[in-house]
C-alpha cells in the first residue's frame, strides 16, 4: 500500500458547522450496490437550494484536492458513500476545525488524511482560497505543516492515524489478518464466544 506523505493541490472552502452526511450524500443515492458515480451527487440538494453559488458548483474550485471545512464536518449517518463521493470528486485531503468520528474513520480507511486547526486559522485559509482560488494548498502529513500562499500553520492529526498514512498502513485489513492466531486466542477467551 502506498505511503501518503503529503497532499498538494487547489483548495475548496466550504463554510458552516455541523454539515452532516445526509447533506454530503442524500440518502436516495445510497440505493446502489457500488460506489461508482457518487461524485455526481455530492451536496446535490445543497447545491440546488443554496442562495449563492455552492462551492461544489463553483467552476473556480472544480479541480480542488483539499477541502477546507469548519467544525463537526461529516456528522450524522455513518454512510461511507459521503467520503467516497468526495474522494471520487477529487478531494484528497481535508482541513477543518473538527470532524465527526465515524466520518474521520471512513476517510482514514480511504486514504484521505483529515487535518484539524483552530477556527481563526481555518477562516484565514478559507478566505485566502476564496480570494485566490488558484493558490496551491500543501498539507504535509508527516509534519502537519500546511502552506498556502503566504499562510503557513501547524495542523494536527491523531498520531496513530498520521503514522498509518506515513507508513502506508492506512488500509487496515491486511494488518488485521496478519496475526490471526491472536484473534482466535481473544475470541476463545471471551465467555460469550465459548458459550459461558
Amino acid at each position, binding site marked *: 500500500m502506498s505511503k501518503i506523505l503529503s497532499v498538494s493541490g487547489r483548495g475548496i472552502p466550504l463554510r458552516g*458547522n*455541523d454539515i*452532516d452526511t*445526509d*447533506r454530503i450524500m*442524500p*440518502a*436516495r443515492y*445510497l*440505493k446502489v*450496490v*457500488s*460506489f461508482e458515480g457518487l461524485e455526481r451527487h455530492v451536496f446535490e*440538494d*445543497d447545491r*440546488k*437550494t443554496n442562495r449563492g453559488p455552492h462551492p461544489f458548483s463553483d467552476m473556480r474550485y472544480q479541480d480542488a484536492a483539499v477541502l477546507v471545512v469548519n*467544525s*463537526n464536518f461529516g*456528522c*450524522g*449517518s*455513518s*454512510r*461511507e458513500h459521503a467520503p467516497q463521493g468526495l474522494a471520487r470528486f477529487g478531494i484528497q485531503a481535508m482541513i477543518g476545525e*473538527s470532524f*465527526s*468520528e*465515524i466520518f474521520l*474513520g*471512513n476517510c482514514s*480507511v480511504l486514504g484521505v488524511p483529515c487535518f484539524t486547526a483552530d477556527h481563526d486559522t481555518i477562516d484565514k485559509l478559507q478566505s485566502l482560497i476564496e480570494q485566490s482560488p488558484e493558490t496551491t494548498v500543501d498539507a504535509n502529513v508527516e509534519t502537519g505543516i500546511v502552506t498556502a500562499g503566504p499562510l503557513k500553520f501547524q495542523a494536527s492529526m*491523531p*498520531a*496513530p*492515524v498520521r*503514522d*498509518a498514512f506515513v*507508513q502506508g*498502513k*492506512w*488500509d*487496515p*485489513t491486511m*494488518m*488485521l*489478518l496478519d*496475526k*490471526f492466531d*491472536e*484473534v482466535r486466542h*481473544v*475470541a476463545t*477467551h*471471551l*465467555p*460469550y*464466544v465459548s*458459550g*459461558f
Partner: protein
Amino acid sequence: MADTLFHKVWNAHKVRTLPSGQTQLFIGLHLIHEVTSPQAFDMLRQHGWKVAFPERTIATIDHIVPTSSQQRPFLDVMAEEMTVSLERNCKEFGIKLYLPDTMEQGIVHVIGPQLGLTQPGMTIACGDSHTSTHGAFGAIAMGIGTSQVRDVLASQCLAVEPLKVRRIDVSGQLAPGVYAKDVILTIIRKLGVQGGVGYAYEYGGDTLDRMTMDERMTICNMSIEGGARAGYVNPDETTFAYLKGRQFAPSGAAWDKAVTWWRSMASDRNANYDDVVRLDAGAIEPTVTWGINPGQSVGVSERIPANADPEALAYMGFEAQMPIRGTKIDVAFIGSCTNGRLSDIEEAARIVKGHKVAKHVKALMVPGSREVAKEAEKRGLHQIFIDAGFEWRGAGCSMCLAMNPDKLEGRQVCASSSNRNFKGRQGSPSGRTLLMSPAMVAAAAIAGEVADVREMLEAVPA
C-alpha cells in the same frame, strides 16, 4: 483497580496494538443490512477473502424495505436489486439473513436486542451510526463505514482508537408526558451535537436505573446525535430480565455464568471518568426540535431562542422567539430505531385512543420489527391507530431517512419520533422535521399542530 465498563470491555476484546498505533479490537457481534454492505462483499471477493467468523454476523433488510406492501419482488427495482444482492452475499459467505418473509425481520437495532443477540460485555459493530442503541445492554457498540464492514467480515476486527468516557448522571422523577426521548434531546441540547466527539457516554443515575430496556435504547440510540460514537448503560436486573428466554440469550447452566460475567463487566462504583455531567430529570419537559440538527430543541412551552442559528431558521421558515407550540404539521411519523418499539406504540396508543387524526395530517405508524407489529396487533393496538386515521404499516426504517417510498413532499412539516432533523432527511430536499417523543407525535397528529401531550394525558386514565 476500579474501572469503567468501557475499559473492561475494551481490554477484553483488544487483540493487540497495530503497527500504526491503533488498537485491533475483536468484534463480538456484527450486524449488517442492505445499504452499507454490498460494496464490502465486493471488496472481499476482489481480494479472495473469506468471512472469518460467519456465525458472528447477522443480516436483515430495513432501510429500503417498503412498508405498504412487502411482497417480493419489490416494486422499486433498486430496492429489489439491493435485497437480491444481500441474499446472494449472505448465501455465498454463510451468513444468517432475516428477510420480511421471516418473523425475525425488522430494523437492525430493534431485532438485535429482541432476538437476544445483543448482550452485555460485547463489542458490537454495524454499518449504521445508530449502532450505539445496543449500548443500552452494557455493550460497546459503534457505527462503522463500509470499508470497516469489510474489515469486520474479513477479520472480525476493527482498527480503532479508544474513546474517553463521560458519565452522564440523570436523577429525579420524570413528569408524566416526559419520556426517554425528552431526556436524550435535553442531553444533546445541553452538551451540543459536537459535545460527545472523542467520548463514549455512560448514562446512569436513578432515572436511568428505573428505565425499561426500551427507554434505555432510546437514550443510547441518539448518543451519535450528541457526537458520541458509543453510549451505554451498565447492565443490571432490568437488563437480565429482558434477555432471559430470548432466542439467542444463554440458557440453562450457561445463564447463571453469563449473569455473573455480565455483572463483573459493569463499571465499578468508584471508577474514574474523564468527565461527569449531572442532569435533573424533574426539570425536563416534552421537548421539540425547531432547527436542522438534534441539538436545536426547546421545551414545548418555550420559544425558539432569540439567538437561534439564522441558517436553521431560514430553512425551517421559523422566526426567533416564536413559540414552537402551535406549529402546524402536515405529516406525523411514529417509528424508527429510536422509537419504534412496543412501549412506544403503547404510549402513543394511549394518546390516540378515541381521537381522530386532524384532517390535513397524514399519519404513519411504522413498527420497528415484525415481532413488534405482531405483539401490538395481538393487543389490538393497530386498531386504535387505524380507527384514528393512522396508516398501520409493515416494519422498516421508513420515513426516518426515506430510502423507501415513505417520503415528505415539498416543504411539508413532519412531527417525527425519529432521530435526525437534518435538511432533506425525510426524503424531500426542502422537507422539515420536528423531532419529539412518540406520545408528542400522537398529540400533534390529533391537534394538527405541535401540542403539549401533558394536557392530553390529563384526560387519559393511567
